[in-house]
C-alpha cells in the first residue's frame, strides 16, 4: 500500500517536472515474477521498431529489449511490446506500465534529471543530416552554399540548419513547410536541392521517394541526437542489466563473437571472452541474473554489428552506413567498458 502511494506521488511529481526520487525498486523481481519484460517502443519507425509481415516487432530498438529478455530468461521472446506515442512514453515508464523504454528517445540532460529517467547507453548516434540528389555532384555538406533547403518549420532542425550555414559562412534559401509529408513531396518534386532532418529519418524518407537510388545522404551530422534505452531512476540493478546488455553486444562485436560462432567461442581461452561468456567470474550473478547472460544475448539476438546490419544496415532497404555508429576501434563512437 505504501509503495503504491509512493509510486503515484512520485509519478505525479515527475510528470509536473518537479523532479523525482526513487521509484519502485526491484524491477528485476517484478519482471521475473511476471515472466516477461514489458518494453515501450515507438508506434512505427522504420528500422527501429516496425511490424513485419507476420506482425512481429522488428528493429534496432526492439532487439535491445529482446536482448534484455534473453539475458534474464534465456528467451528473446519473453518480452511484450507497448507501442507508445511520443507524449505517452515518459508517463508509461514513470508509472511502471513498462520496464524499459526503447523508443528512439534522445538522451538529454533534462530527461536524465528532471524527468527521473536513467539512460542506459546510446544504441544509435543520430543527428541532423542532409540528403541531396546524386546528380547534384555534391559529396560534402560544406559544398552546399547557395542551395535551396527543404525543412520542416518550427523545429530544432530549422535552427540547427541556420547555425550550421552561418558558422561555415555559407548561404542557403530555406523552403519551409509545416508538415513532414509536405516536405517529402516538395523535395520529391524537385522544389529544393537539399532535404534536412535527422539522419535516420532521411534514410527512411529516401525509400518513399519516387527514385530512391537517385538520392544520397551526405556524411556530415550537424547536431547531437544520441538515442538510447531508458529506465526509471532508483533501481540501480535494473539500470545495470539494461546497460550491460547493450555493452555485451558491443563487446561481442569487438571480440568477433557472433550469433553463429558463439558456441565455438565458449571454449576459447582468451580471458576477455571467457569473462564475457560466463566461463570465468560471476558477472551475471552480480546483477541478479545467470552467468551465461551474455552468451544468451549473443546466441539469441546477436552482437551489435549483427543487429545493426539486420535492421538498418547496408543489406536492408534502409541501407544506413555504420558511420559514427561503428565501434571506437573502427573510427566510430560505440565504446563499451570492459568486463572484469
Amino acid at each position, binding site marked *: 500500500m505504501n509503495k503504491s502511494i509512493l509510486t503515484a506521488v512520485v509519478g505525479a511529481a515527475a510528470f509536473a517536472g518537479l523532479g523525482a526520487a526513487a521509484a519502485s525498486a526491484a524491477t528485476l523481481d517484478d519482471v521475473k515474477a511476471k515472466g516477461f519484460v514489458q518494453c515501450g517502443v515507438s508506434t512505427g519507425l522504420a528500422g527501429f521498431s516496425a511490424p513485419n509481415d507476420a506482425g512481429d516487432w522488428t528493429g534496432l530498438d526492439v532487439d535491445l529489449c529482446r536482448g534484455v529478455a534473453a539475458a534474464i530468461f534465456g528467451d528473446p521472446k519473453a518480452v511484450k511490446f507497448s507501442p507508445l506515442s511520443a507524449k505517452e512514453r515518459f508517463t508509461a515508464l514513470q*508509472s511502471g*506500465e513498462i520496464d524499459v523504454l526503447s523508443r528512439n528517445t534522445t538522451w538529454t540532460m533534462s530527461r536524465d534529471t528532471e524527468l527521473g529517467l536513467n539512460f542506459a547507453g546510446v544504441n544509435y548516434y543520430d543527428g541532423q543530416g542532409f540528403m541531396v540528389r546524386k546528380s547534384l555532384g555534391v559529396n560534402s555538406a560544406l559544398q552546399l552554399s547557395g542551395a535551396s533547403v527543404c525543412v520542416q518549420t518550427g523545429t530544432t532542425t530549422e535552427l540547427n540548419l541556420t547555425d550550421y550555414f552561418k558558422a561555415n559562412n555559407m548561404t542557403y534559401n530555406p523552403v519551409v513547410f509545416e508538415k513532414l509529408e509536405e516536405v517529402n513531396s516538395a523535395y520529391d518534386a524537385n522544389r529544393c536541392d537539399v532535404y534536412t532532418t535527422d539522419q535516420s529519418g532521411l534514410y527512411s524518407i529516401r525509400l518513399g521517394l519516387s527514385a530512391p537510388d537517385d538520392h544520397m545522404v551526405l556524411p556530415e551530422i550537424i547536431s547531437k541526437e544520441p538515442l538510447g534505452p531508458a529506465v526509471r531512476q532508483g533501481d540501480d540493478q535494473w539500470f545495470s542489466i539494461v546497460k550491460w546488455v547493450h555493452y555485451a553486444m558491443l563487446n561481442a562485436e569487438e571480440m568477433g563473437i557472433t550469433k553463429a560462432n558463439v558456441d565455438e567461442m565458449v571454449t576459447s581461452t582468451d580471458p576477455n571472452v571467457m569473462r564475457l561468456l560466463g566461463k570465468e567470474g560471476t558477472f551475471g550473478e552480480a546483477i541478479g541474473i545467470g552467468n551465461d547472460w551474455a552468451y544468451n544475448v549473443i546466441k539469441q539476438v546477436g552482437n551489435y554489428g549483427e543487429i545493426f546490419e539486420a535492421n538498418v544496415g547496408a543489406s536492408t532497404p534502409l541501407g544506413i552506413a555504420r558511420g559514427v555508429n561503428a565501434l571506437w576501434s573502427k573510427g566510430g563512437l560505440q565504446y563499451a567498458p570492459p568486463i572484469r
Partner: protein
Amino acid sequence: MDNQKESIAFLRAANAPTMPPPVSDRGVIGWLRANLFASPRDSVLSILVLLLLVWVVPPIFKWAVTNAVWNGTSRDDCIGPEVGACWAFVKAKFGQFIYGRYPIEERWRVNLTGLLLIIGLVPIAMPTVPYKRENAVYLLIVFPILAFILLTGQLGLEPVETSRWGGLLVTLVVAIVGIVVSFPLGILLALGRRSEMPVIKMFSIIFIEFWRGVPLITVLFMSSVMLPLFLPADVSFDKLLRALIGVALFSSAYMAEVIRGGLQAIPKGQYEAANAMGLTFWQGTRLVTMPQALTLVIPGIVNTFIGLFKDTSLVLIIGLFDLLGIVQQNMTDPNWISPVTPATGFVFAAFVFFIFCFGMSRYSAYMERRLDTGHKR
C-alpha cells in the same frame, strides 16, 4: 337514320392501336433528354460533368487497376516510374489489418465471434423474421458474454491480452460497444434532462454538458496519460477498456441530445393522452412517446453512430491500433516503404470504412421508409 348510317364512309369499330411514344421521348434518348439535356443550362452542365468524369476517372482506374501491383513480396515489386496502387502490400498485411497482432493460430476465435454476431444481427435487422425478443436477448446478453470469452480467452482458451488486438477487430469492438452502450444510456439521459426531479435533471445536464464540452481526443489522452499516474503501480487498467468507457460515455451524451430533440418534437397532446389513458410514466414513455420520438430522429441517431464509428480511429493516440492505425503503422515497415504504399494503405482503409458507414446509412434509410416518418408531417 339508315340513310345516315350508310352515308358514313368509315366507322371505327375498335380503338386505334396504342402507338409507342415518339423515339425522342423514350428509351435511352428519352431518358437523356428528360434528365440531362432538358434545357440549354442542363445541357451545358451535363457536358461539363461528363468532361470532368473523362478527365478524372481514367487516371484513377489506371492507378487502381491497370498499373496496380497485385502480387509481390516486398517494396521492390512496387517501385517503378509508372506503378499504381501497391495492392501486394495490402495482401501481405491483410491479416494484420483485420486482426492486428492477434496470434495467428487463435484467429479462428475472432472469426467465430464475427459469425456469432452476424447470426444475431441479420435476423434482428429483418423486420419479417419472428422471435425478436429471443433474438434481442441473444444479441445483448448471450453474445457479449460469448464474445468476451472467445476474444480475451477465458475457460481454458489461450489468453490474448487486448494490447495484441488491432485492425478492424478493434474498430468494430470500440464502435459496437459504443453504439450498444450509448443508445440506452442516451435514452435515460434524455429523459433525465426533461425530468422534473431536480437531482436527476441536474445530474443529466452536468453529465451531458461535461462530455459534450471536452474533445474525445482529450478524454482518451487523459485516460492514457493521467490515469496511470494516479493508480497504484500494480493496478493497470486495460487500455482498451479505458477507450471503451471513454467512447461510450462520450457518445451517450451526444445520443441524449439527439433523442431529446425527438422528444421535444412530439406534440404535448401525446403526453397528455398517455396520462389520460392511465398509463404510468414508464408505460407512456415505452408505448407512446419514445417510439414516436425515436422514429423521428432516426437520421440523427444514425449520424451519431456513423460519427462514432469513424471516431474510433482516435484510439491511435493512446497506442491502440484500429484499422487506420495498423495501416499507418505497417507503412513504416522498411520492407514495404515506397512512394505508393501510403496512398494504397489509405485507400484501402477508406474503402473499408466506407463499406460500414454506407451500410449503416442504407439500413437507416430503409427503416425510415418502413416507418414512413418522412411523410407524416
